[in-house]
């Protein structure tokens, strides 16, 4: 164990002292992620929850309410039809859909009688924070709409008329009481001093009224879309981090053989397997560190927050194991740095191209998606995306994790077998 740790520490120290290799392992992937994140849209500079708005009946009150929603600074509202709204919420592209149903305008015209206006809120049940915020905004708008209509003489006349019309539905004594109340209210609101009262003061005098009711409908999000462009570009950047570490260690392993240190190590009381295990451990640690660095920067600066941190760590570990195995196999393909590097690029580039590290998987044509199953890069990307924005369950994570572990074990074993059989 002492020798294994010494081997791994030595390789990590050598990498840290090689500025070029360090840059391509840690710095370059970050630059790639940020650059392509910006190119592909980033997060549009907004942290406002994005919601869809569905208007199911065209009338003046409903339209007024819709316009007040569209003009909000605190929500990014897009007006669409019901089917589109549901689809966007289901895809995770919108936090929620606000539906102004048939009858919303008509109910808004009755302040003190009948049922209050109802708004439907379709949303992903996991988005609790967005739900609270959207509901709060809707209640505020509902209150403002109610008191605006009280202050508007024509609107007031309309809802007093409709309210008086509803008096027939009440018991005689209630009918009398409400009739007197409506008369007093009408007289008060036509008094100039009161008519000039601002909305907030009016609202405070009418506490207890229900301006509207929010009815929630949960929509299961089958597969989330990436929250922003960085969610995609950081996953791709993570591939470059893995590739950078892989190339560094391929070179390092070949250089050990070329420079004679391999023979010196082999002359020590260590098996070839132990020496390779030390190299693999260093490679694994560097890959994990690089992925963690990208993940922290992505979350802290670019809002790429993982869906599940434990699953993200699992994805990182399995991807690092797979790429460490690939490193071992690729290092066995050449006896010189040029040959091994050439072989590594020749193998990794096609795997990256079909694996979703260059073209996002979700925009690939079906035939390419089919082909991508053969690439361990795809499963690394899927695993990381699954833990970041695809919202994978633990069971769903098992497929990429198992494939990556198998890749690591098979490729690593094959590479180690080849290396230990090559002449010194």
């Amino acid at each position, binding site marked *: 164990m*002492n*020798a294994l740790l*010494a*081997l791994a520490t*030595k390789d990590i*120290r*050598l990498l840290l*002292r*090689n500025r070029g290799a360090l840059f391509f392992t840690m710095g370059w992937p970050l630059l790639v992620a940020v650059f392509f994140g910006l190119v592909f849209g980033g997060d549009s500079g907004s942290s406002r929850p994005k919601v869809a708005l569905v208007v199911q009946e065209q009338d003046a009150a409903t339209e007024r309410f819709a316009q007040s929603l569209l003009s909000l600074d605190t929500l990014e509202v897009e007006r669409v039809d019901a089917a589109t709204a549901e689809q966007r919420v289901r895809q995770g592209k919108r936090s929620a859909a606000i539906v102004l149903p048939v009858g919303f305008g008509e109910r808004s015209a009755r302040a003190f009688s009948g049922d209050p206006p109802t708004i439907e809120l379709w949303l992903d049940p996991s988005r609790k924070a967005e739900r609270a915020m959207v509901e709060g905004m809707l209640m505020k708008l509902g209150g403002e709409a109610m008191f605006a209509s009280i202050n508007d003489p024509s609107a007031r006349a309309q809802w007093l008329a409709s309210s008086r019309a509803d008096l027939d539905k009440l018991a005689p004594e209630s009918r009398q009481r409400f009739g007197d109340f409506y008369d007093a209210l009408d007289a008060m609101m036509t008094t100039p001093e009161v008519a000039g009262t601002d909305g907030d003061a009016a609202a405070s005098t009418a506490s207890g009224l229900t301006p509207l009711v929010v009815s929630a409908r949960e929509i299961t999000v089958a597969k989330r879309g990436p929250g922003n462009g960085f969610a995609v570009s950081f996953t791709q950047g993570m591939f470059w981090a893995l590739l950078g570490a892989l190339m560094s260690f391929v070179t390092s392993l070949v250089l050990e053989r070329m*420079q*004679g*240190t391999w*023979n*010196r*190590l*082999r*002359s*020590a*009381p*260590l*098996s070839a397997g132990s020496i390779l295990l030390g190299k693999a451990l260093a490679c694994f640690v560097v890959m994990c560190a690089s992925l963690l660095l990208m993940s922290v920067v992505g979350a802290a600066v670019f809002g790429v927050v993982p869906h599940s941190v434990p699953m993200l760590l699992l994805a990182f570990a399995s991807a690092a194991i797979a790429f460490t195995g690939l490193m071992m196999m690729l290092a066995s393909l050449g006896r010189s740095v040029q040959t091994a590097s050439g072989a590594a690029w020749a193998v990794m580039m096609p795997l990256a191209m079909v694996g979703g590290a260059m073209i996002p998987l979700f925009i690939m044509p079906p035939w390419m998606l089919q082909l991508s199953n053969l690439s361990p890069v795809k499963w690394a990307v899927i695993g990381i995306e699954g833990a970041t924005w695809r919202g994978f369950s633990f069971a769903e994570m098992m497929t990429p994790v198992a494939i990556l572990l198998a890749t690591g074990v098979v490729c690593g074993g094959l590479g180690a077998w080849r290396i230990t059989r090559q*002449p*010194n």
Partner: protein
Amino acid sequence: MIRIDAARKQFGSTVALDGLSLDVRPGEIFGLLGPNGAGKSTTMALLTGLQTPDAGSVTVLGGDPRDPALRARIGLAPQSLALYEQLSGRENLTFFARMFGLRGERLKQRVDAALDFVQLADRQRDHAGTYSGGMQRRLNLAAAIVHEPELILLDEPTAGVDPQSRHALFENVLALKAAGRTIVYTTHYMEEVERLCDRVAIVDRGRVLAVDSVAGLLRMHAGVPVLVVERAGRSERIETADPLAELNRIAAAGPVEGFHVERPRLEQVFLHLTGRSLRD
């Protein structure tokens, strides 16, 4: 200490060792002298367990050199500078010492001792890549002895170094012998063998052509000394077993303007044994 019996090793169509046999005694400096490609490095690889013979047998320190416990008692300074240039001299030695199981205070003591031994203590914090060729060679030697091995294998340890560093390395090798270590020293420099080695094996094309002390090899294979006499404006070369008697005889016959004696060298031994020069 070492016994190689009829070892044969072939790489593809190239025969590296062709029935090579030799014995090395405890406490001696044993030289392997031969041109490039003679099989010296392959012999070293057999002695460290890096290679196994296709035929024949190799016994080192009474056992199989592939045994890890036994390899811990062997130190190898490979022909190539097997060092990490981005690590300091001290970090290199610490790393290799840990590979041989050293830890704690003993690790520190041995690293200090090895640095002192090769006179690199003052440069121990500098990256090995900044060392001169001679200093790197000395560090290469230090890495071979940091774990205090009984048997030290030095494969062309002075390749590409300046005379001053070469002299320092000679002193190091002689000090190791004085400390009771057994050393196998490969080289194609005859003067190194003549200066350092107790016994020498002349190796060519994977076989040992002769083994003896330098004096014994010269006596057996180098022929007689050559007396070079200048008289009457001419230079004469006379092979003779007794140059002084021959010179007296010539001087009695007439005036001698100048003379010198060319003593036999290992070059003649190699020429005699192989029919070609060591440096061909």
